[in-house]
């Protein structure tokens, strides 16, 4: 996969996904620290032959904890329902995030992956995606329901959107996953709607153990697909920690 091909494909997907973010207000991940750069300025390259699925082991990075969240219907749901039983890609988002290399880039990557997962009969029912909102104040169940509906739900594939009832209920989830978030303030020190966070996608096995974490420099769809296949085709490892 060449860099050019990657970028072209990402750009195409971005055009398809970008309208999902239309109508939102402010840009995320823009830095308030003039001296600080939030990260890479371009999509990651994959200038290598991706190792074949099943030829390597993924590390058992950390366990996921349970928490009570809300689904798009406003029902209380255990996060563990969404991190066990299937191979899961979980990411954090918020509906007003518009930075092209923030949440929207995550959507591009996940949308592309969904198409490839659904096309593989052995994966379609064994894999799910989960998006958890970082902004429970704005992203009510109704808001994330409308947002999720724009993803053209595919009955062949499970893609769930969750939010928290409050910030205190979200914080332990962020702490467990190691997802950093801060809120930009206006000149008077009041919180704005801009959330600073590092885009991360967590690959979780059927036992709820994180087996890979993809941040922007590592969000390589071909690699991610083979990692998913590796977990689906591998017997579960005994957790040793």
């Amino acid at each position: 996969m060449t860099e050019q091909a990657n970028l072209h494909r990402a750009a195409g997907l971005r055009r398809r996904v970008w309208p999902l973010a239309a109508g939102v207000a402010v840009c995320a991940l823009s830095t308030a620290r003039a001296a600080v750069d939030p990260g890479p300025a371009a999509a990651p390259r994959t200038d290598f032959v991706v190792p074949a699925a099943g030829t390597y082991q993924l590390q058992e990075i950390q366990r996921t904890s349970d928490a009570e969240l809300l689904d798009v219907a406003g029902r209380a749901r255990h996060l563990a329902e969404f991190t066990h039983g299937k191979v899961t890609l979980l990411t954090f988002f918020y509906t007003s995030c518009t930075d092209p290399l923030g949440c929207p880039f995550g959507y591009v990557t996940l949308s592309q992956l969904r198409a490839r997962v659904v096309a593989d009969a052995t994966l379609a029912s064994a894999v799910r995606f989960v998006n958890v909102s970082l902004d429970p104040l704005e992203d009510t169940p109704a808001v994330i329901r409308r947002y999720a509906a724009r993803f053209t739900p595919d009955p062949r594939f499970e893609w769930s959107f969750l939010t928290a009832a409050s910030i205190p209920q979200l914080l332990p989830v962020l702490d467990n996953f190691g997802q950093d978030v801060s809120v930009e303030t206006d000149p008077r020190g009041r919180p704005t709607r801009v959330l600073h966070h590092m885009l991360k996608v967590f690959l979780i096995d059927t036992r709820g153990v994180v087996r890979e974490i993809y941040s922007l420099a590592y969000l390589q769809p071909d690699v991610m697909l083979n990692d998913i296949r590796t977990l689906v085709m591998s017997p579960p490892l005994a957790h040793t920690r």
Partner: protein
Amino acid sequence: MRNRFRLSMLLTAACLTNGLLALPAIADETCNSPYISNLIKGQEDYIHVWTLGVEHLGDGSDKLVTIDVNPKSKAYGKVINSLSVGGRGEAHHMGFTDDRRYLWAGNLDDSKIFVFDVGSNPAKPTLVRTITDLPAKTGFIGPHTFYALPGRLVIGMLSNSRDKGGVTGLAVYNNKGEFVAKYAMPTTAIGGVQGDGYGYDVAINPARNAMLTSSFAGWENYMRNLGDLVKDPAAMKHFGNTLVMWNLKTLQPTQIFNVPGAPLEIRWALAPGQDWAITATALTSKLWLVKQSAGQWQAKEVGTIGDPSKVPLPVDISITADGKGLWVNTFMDGITHYFDLSDPEHPRQTYQLHTGAQVNMVSQSWDGKRLYITSSLLSQWDKTGQDNEQFLRAFNWNGHALTPAFSVDFTQEKLGRPHHMKFSAKSTQQVALADTGPVRR
């Protein structure tokens, strides 16, 4: 001066007879892992210095020293915080977690790892965790390089607990401080090149799925008095002579390169498409380039640092953000060198300055305008007498010459031996999510 001459003579003799000797280092904004967010591309506010305690000096303890380095600050050039960890364990190197909130700092002697919170208030870091199970979990000792991966760190080790020699490996811990995995450095041959099992630095190029490691020496050598060490021909043979290329995804070694003389710091060129790395060998005083040719990685000698016959001992290196320049410190003669890397196949030294009686670490700002140098190499290897200067010195670089900006005397300040440096910046116009209140707008 007499001490330096005597040590130089010893080192020269040792290297001539045995061809071996080496030293540690690593630093700066341009050498951070590509997985780290929030690179500081403007003015850094603080430098954190992992400092070895010295008996009968201050509290005698290893400590994280924070210095204000923003010229606009009233405390510019001053020590604003000192956080002792209790005891002396050979403080050495540090590395950020991928979110840059935590700084992991390692000890080469007792193999402890201290995790500091530098995200909440970088002016006043706090110790949040001490990791003590590294030898028990891995069989390796001497945590050297802390290199961020998403949600975890890969730790380049120097030695092992069995014989305290140089055969070692890599350890992986998650950001919570839990052990994840270990990987042995190769001791068999790959592609006809014999692995020596030694370890030192780690550097990753995600776009190439490439992880490169280098090799130094075990506890038996780096914790031994240098004067004694260089007089022991058998011990002087126990230094690394290899680089290893790994498949990053599978974490399997794929190639071994013979690079004589302890290749230490590794820096990948950061400019897009510049998929090469450079390293310096401590004993042989050479620059080596690692680059792909016809689909295979190759390592080749591309330059000389100072006069190798005088054993200048290149230690830390710092590559510019555009990959067109390289700073190199040589410990023995106290010289800071600048190489033009416009053609990485043919580096040219274009500038040098004597920056101290002994110099080890060199860290540059992302924009290349500021350079920071510290003095200490290892507690048992630092010079003695008047040449045992212990400092952090800041310089401004205009592209042609270094101009002194400020200096902190770590002995006068009763702090210890300053080693590794990391930058941080104030977090302005941001609050924690927890501080925004659960009120729906």
